[in-house]
């Protein structure tokens, strides 16, 4: 009990103090997660729509693969990214390992399948008459798909939020590709892992509470945008 009370107290103190370490970690977390979410949406939404709207052989297989990719452990993505981005790897010359960019790349790979699956599910859940109706009313193919997206925008937004949630909460990719460098690639989650390893459990817990509050604000903000 003591542990929880003292962590909550230090969480409040942390938030009040605006310590540069915490501010840096929040900023890094938010920016790399946002970047990864943008790229994941750019990849995942069209992919989900494409799979959802077209018919082709092996479609069920592709859907199964997409579903499986949602369950890939973050450390495996981290390991894969490490293999590619390390100086020994095929992309090593870019020197991206242990930079925020590396976390964005890893986060994109993590979030894109989730975004695609959510987009796919919302296409499947949409009224099947939307596309034919738009087409009969004289809309071009692109315009008709635009109408469909407008109709399923809540599903698309949910896809983006879920993708963001996956990236902002993971620790494997951020640790392996970012390297937990203070003031540079230290995110909220790697900071929590570090504090825990130092035995500063209350401080780690406090950072966890801060992370949840940040996520809450992001979601409140997105909701606001949606309902306006």
């Amino acid at each position, binding site marked *: 009990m003591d542990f929880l009370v003292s962590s909550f107290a230090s969480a409040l103190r942390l938030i009040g103090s605006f310590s540069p370490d915490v501010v840096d970690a929040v900023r890094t977390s938010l920016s790399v997660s*946002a970047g990864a979410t943008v790229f994941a949406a750019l990849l995942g939404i069209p992919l989900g729509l494409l799979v959802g709207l077209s018919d082709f052989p092996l479609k069920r297989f592709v859907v199964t693969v997409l579903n499986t990719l949602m369950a890939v452990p973050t450390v495996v993505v981290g390991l894969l990214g490490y293999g590619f981005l390390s*100086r020994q790897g095929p992309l090593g010359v870019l020197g991206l390992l242990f930079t925020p960019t590396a976390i*964005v790349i890893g986060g994109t790979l993590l979030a894109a399948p989730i975004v695609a699956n959510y987009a796919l599910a919302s296409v499947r859940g949409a009224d099947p008459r939307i596309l034919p109706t738009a087409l009969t009313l004289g809309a071009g193919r692109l315009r008709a798909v635009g*109408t469909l997206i407008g109709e399923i925008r809540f599903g698309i937004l949910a896809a983006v939020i879920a993708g*963001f949630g996956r990236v902002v909460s993971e620790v494997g990719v951020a640790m392996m590709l970012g390297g937990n460098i203070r003031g*540079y690639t230290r995110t909220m989650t790697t900071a929590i892992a570090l504090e825990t*390893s*130092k*035995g500063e459990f209350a401080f780690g817990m406090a950072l966890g509470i801060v992370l949840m509050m940040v996520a809450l604000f992001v979601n409140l903000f997105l909701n606001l945008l949606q309902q306006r």
Partner: protein
Amino acid sequence: MKKFPRILEIFFVFALLALTALPAVAEERLRMSTTTSTENSGLLAVLLPPFEKKFGCKVDVVAVGTGKALKLGEAGDVDIVFVHARTLEDKFVANGSGVNRRDVMYNDFVLLGPRDDPAGAGKSNSAPDAFRAIAAKGIAFISRGDESGTHQKEKEIWASAGIVPRGAWYVEAGQGMGEVIMMATQKRGYALSDRGTYIAFRKKTDLVVLRQGDRNLWNPYGIVAVHPKKHAHVKYDLAMKLVDFVTGAEGRSLIAGFKVDGEPLFFVHGKGVGH
């Protein structure tokens, strides 16, 4: 179609947010891999800022186990390595990955165990003897199991005790020093720890030091620049400036003056406690 731009709006906000990841000023960055003990103890937070200020650069610290820290150097993913496993460091230099290895500082390892010492490890005459006593009684021993410098040292001691540790009592945690101390506390077992981490955890554990001060519990730290002949992209000149700084007068006095709870954690050669 009117509702569509809102999704774009959200995109726009996210993209703006992502831009804040770009560093404000492009400083030269030196990348150093090091062991968790130097970073977690807080030493680097004292040692590095004066260097960064002096040379107008930023040192990016990647804190991992010694084994991985050296691997990162071998792969050319860092410019400089600051670790504690002398034999591995020498191998690192011998295989052409590193150059100009220097001694920086030292501290020592301690054998931790429960106060009532069920294996009688505290009554033994040497560290290998103590390990033998623990193995004979089959009392829990928590090993780092992660190829860190501490794990290397532990394996050396098992080897000189002539024992291959195996069995339910030998727990390979695969975690950092702090986690291992906490695990040993929970299991009422033994563990080998560097003194710095133990001092940092003293308030959180009821384990006590049962064996210390042996010659083979000595823990020297070394710094090695990654060889520019093997990896042309490394910042060798800046790395050597850091080597000179931490082994020079200013670095030495910063290390010697660094204290946790009023106790010095690291000693520079030629000063402090002799071994």
